[in-house]
């Protein structure tokens, strides 16, 4: 059943909100009063509840089943975290209240910062970045600020070809030239090639570890040493921190800055595409350049270091402010709740179970699908397949993804990383049971066999059992329709 748009069912007269009467006062809008309708439809509350309830039922979500979207770490979102994030003491305080009235909130930020620094083995953390890509920007700005402080205007940043698109985009945003580092046939950064590119104009490297091929960069420490020796800094994309949390500390690998996606490793809900949260840990070398605001423990409790304090001489090296206010407080509460629930032992178990689940999937499916790096050692928390096994079938990675929908699964990540042809990146996460994995493996095997057996229609036409059939994305981009407008017929009739 189709769901009408609110613009097709609401009216300007209807409202689903009751408000007290407006007192009669002398208005002071100075001639800026609205004089035309906004043309916004309203609905009574029952209709609003139904509209969005029915819309929700057209979505797939972790709460419904396995969501093996590689690199996105779609794990269980505990409801405890939702509950504590809604405590009025966190949810109902203003970012500019006098600091004395929000000591508990600042304590929470400081506590979360302590957990993040400890797990990473790094001395400083910037809490304010709003998402992973924003964290990357934060890290790269710190690198650029550090070089600038030394009067050393370097121009190049090295980025492996397997990197997330945000890496080169971020480096470019900071005014750097992006230089690509090739991968070895084993799917890791080519250390020799990297060393060859190092030089006095290289500001740093951006390395994802574990990388997007699902492998641990076993030579990262050597890379770091080489980069440091060349006067550069090491930025680590922490999107895959889930695989190693509690097993190894990035600080011990020579990393200078790394963002942490609280919505991945620490399970704050993705919410259909945000909000995220991307704190960045820093080495001692970069710590002085970290952005505002900052938490500091003073004699009379927690203090916030903001523009005012900087003006007064504190934290002078900071490259400035990345965002209004203090970052994603709502996500901080959820992440800390998640971390406290797991504790040091549980977080280590998270990494172990995530890696075990991914290796289990990889080994069970490598005979039916192509695992290009199967010989490169164990994978971390993602299992990467290429589309080589589909050669000659006329079936693509996209078709496989859509056929998975018919089997009741969210598809894995498609066509990423770019270093593998027709990539399929499967990340089960640690919150899947063995029974779920076995069922998933059975399904994937059956699909692989059906594909090889030439059942093309089942794939080309998929999905059959979704709220909608395959959507025409090309038409959408050709003549973009981004907002609703009244159909011409209806307009004419008025």
């Amino acid at each position, binding site marked *: 059943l189709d769901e009408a748009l609110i613009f097709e069912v609401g009216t300007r007269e209807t409202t689903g909100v009751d408000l007290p009467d407006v007192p009669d006062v002398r208005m002071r809008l100075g001639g800026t009063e609205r004089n035309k309708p906004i043309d916004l439809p309203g609905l009574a509350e029952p209709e609003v509840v139904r509209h969005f309830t029915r819309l929700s039922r057209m979505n797939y979500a*972790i709460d419904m089943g396995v969501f093996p979207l590689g690199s996105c770490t779609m794990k269980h979102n505990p409801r405890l975290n*939702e509950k504590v994030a809604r405590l009025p003491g966190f949810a109902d305080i203003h970012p*500019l209240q006098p600091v004395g009235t929000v000591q508990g909130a600042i304590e929470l930020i400081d506590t979360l910062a302590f957990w993040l620094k400890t797990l990473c083995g790094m001395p400083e953390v910037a809490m304010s970045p709003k998402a*992973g890509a924003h964290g990357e920007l934060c890290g790269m700005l710190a690198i650029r600020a550090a070089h600038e402080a030394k009067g050393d205007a370097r121009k190049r940043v090295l980025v492996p070809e397997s990197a997330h698109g945000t890496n080169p985009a971020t480096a470019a945003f900071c005014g750097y030239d992006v230089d690509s580092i090739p991968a070895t046939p084993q799917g890791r950064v080519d250390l020799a090639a990297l060393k060859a590119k190092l030089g006095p104009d290289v500001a740093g490297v951006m390395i994802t570890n574990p990388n997007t091929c699902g492998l*641990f960069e076993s030579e990262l420490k050597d890379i770091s040493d080489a980069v440091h020796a060349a006067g550069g800094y090491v930025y680590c994309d922490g999107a895959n921190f889930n695989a190693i949390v509690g097993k190894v500390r990035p600080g011990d690998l020579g990393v200078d800055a790394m963002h942490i996606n609280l919505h991945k490793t620490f399970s704050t809900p993705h919410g259909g595409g945000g909000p995220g949260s991307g704190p960045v840990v820093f080495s001692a070398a970069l710590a002085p350049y970290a952005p505002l605001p900052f938490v500091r423990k003073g004699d009379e409790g927690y203090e916030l270091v903001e523009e005012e304090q900087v003006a007064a001489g504190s934290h002078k090296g900071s490259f400035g402010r990345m965002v209004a*206010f203090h970052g994603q407080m709502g996500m901080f509460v959820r992440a800390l709740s998640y971390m406290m629930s797991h504790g040091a032992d549980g977080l280590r178990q998270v990494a172990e179970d995530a890696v075990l689940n991914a290796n289990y999937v990889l080994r069970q499916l490598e005979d039916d699908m192509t695992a290009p790096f199967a010989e490169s050692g164990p994978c971390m928390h993602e299992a990467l397949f290429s589309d080589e096994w589909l050669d000659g079938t006329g079936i693509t990675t996209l078709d496989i993804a859509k056929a998975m929908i018919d089997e009741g699964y969210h598809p894995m990540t498609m066509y990423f990383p770019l270093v593998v042809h027709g990539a399929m990146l499967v990340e089960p996460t640690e919150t899947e049971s063995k029974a779920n994995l076995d069922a998933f493996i059975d399904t994937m095997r059956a699909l692989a066999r059906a594909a090889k057996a030439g059942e093309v229609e089942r794939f080309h036409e998929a999905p059959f059992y979704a709220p909608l059939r395959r959507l025409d*994305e090309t038409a959408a981009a050709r003549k973009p329709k981004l907002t609703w407008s009244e159909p011409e017929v209806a307009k004419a009739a008025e």
Partner: protein
Amino acid sequence: MRYLPLTDTDRQQMLSAIGAADIDTLFADVPESVRLDGPVRELPPHASEMAVERDLGRMARKNLTASDAPFFLGCGAYKHHVPASVDHLIQRGEFLTSYTPYQPEIAQGTLQYLFEFQTQVARLTGMDVANASMYDGSTACVEAIFMARRITRRKRALISGGVHPHYVSVAKTLTHFTDDVLDVHTPVLRPGAPGDDLDALIAAIDEDTSCVVVQNPNLFGHVADLGALASACHEKGALLIAVVTEIVSLGAVRSPGEMGADIVVGEGQSIGGGLNFGGPYLGLFACNQKHIRQIPGRLCGETVDASGKRGFVLTLSTREQHIRREKATSNICTNSGLMALAFTIHMSLLGEAGIRKLAALNHARACQVADRLGALPGVTVLNDTFFNEFTIRLDREARPVIRHLADKGVLGGVALGRLYADDGDIENCVTLAVTETVTDSDIDALVAAYEGALSC
């Protein structure tokens, strides 16, 4: 561990299925020298729900909440009443625990509300189109400056002194290493029209100006007609970027689009969102149809499925980092999906009638408070015009007064010394916001508290 379904038996079976002796075999690529041999020692072990709730509850209780005090803070974050159904609906697992709608066939719920959201934002701001939201108002603002540069191929952005100082800081930080040049005007607390520098801005526009950034209502609450500024911009080939931090104002004030703005950015937290100590918030971004291929961030568009039914998809992704990498319009990869949902739900409940009454109520309450405070000795109301926020000058430094009020349990506004560290005159000023949540007794308590603080 309640969130981890594998049993020890499962783990053993799986290890043997993959031929690994133990779990550390799978971590063999992590050099042994850095591999931790057990749980990180400085952190506590796992805890029950009860224990976590108790610990976090203890921290939460140390804060004075906006509902526990007469509350008058604004400056970019506003306390409004959010209907209970909003929070109920956004917690449905199908919304909360879903991902970016890359697989549209099983994400029509998210995509359709984004399409509705884009339409609502476009109509409210008076623009043709809007994107699917950004991190917050401050980051949306700097993205607009970049977009203006891309469109005009000019580098100089003029920024009004009435723009939120955090937004200005963010713009400064993010343009520090780019080619952009920011010309930031210092705020002038003109009696009657604090922060109004429209004439100065008009005078400063030149052939190299990519855009003028102006906030309306501005940080000090002053509200103005931007028409003349828009014309001046357009005459010189510059774009007008309007910032709206209190989106409820658009229920009463003409939209920036009607006033001639080319890009409207804003903070949407007021609709559907709580205060949340500053985040997550909701960046709004709207512009005219002709610039859509320069918009940063995610866009949702209408299309059809294989059987001809209407559906929605993410579109124009060739602008984005996952396709264009270093040539993307922005490195942004996340929106504020869930806050956008809350906005869409709340706005669907309000509708035209609701948002207009809500705005009228905010304005009327603010007028009442301005009149009451203005009558106190030692207090001067600077604004002749405002929406739900205005600025007062005290006869002394404001920050100790605000702290004194807080000690008495009254959150009496934002002392501007908190936002403008180094200005003399501004240190005596306070900006107050008054919304529909304020009661008569809150107002009485506020007035009494100021009276008390200023009489000693």
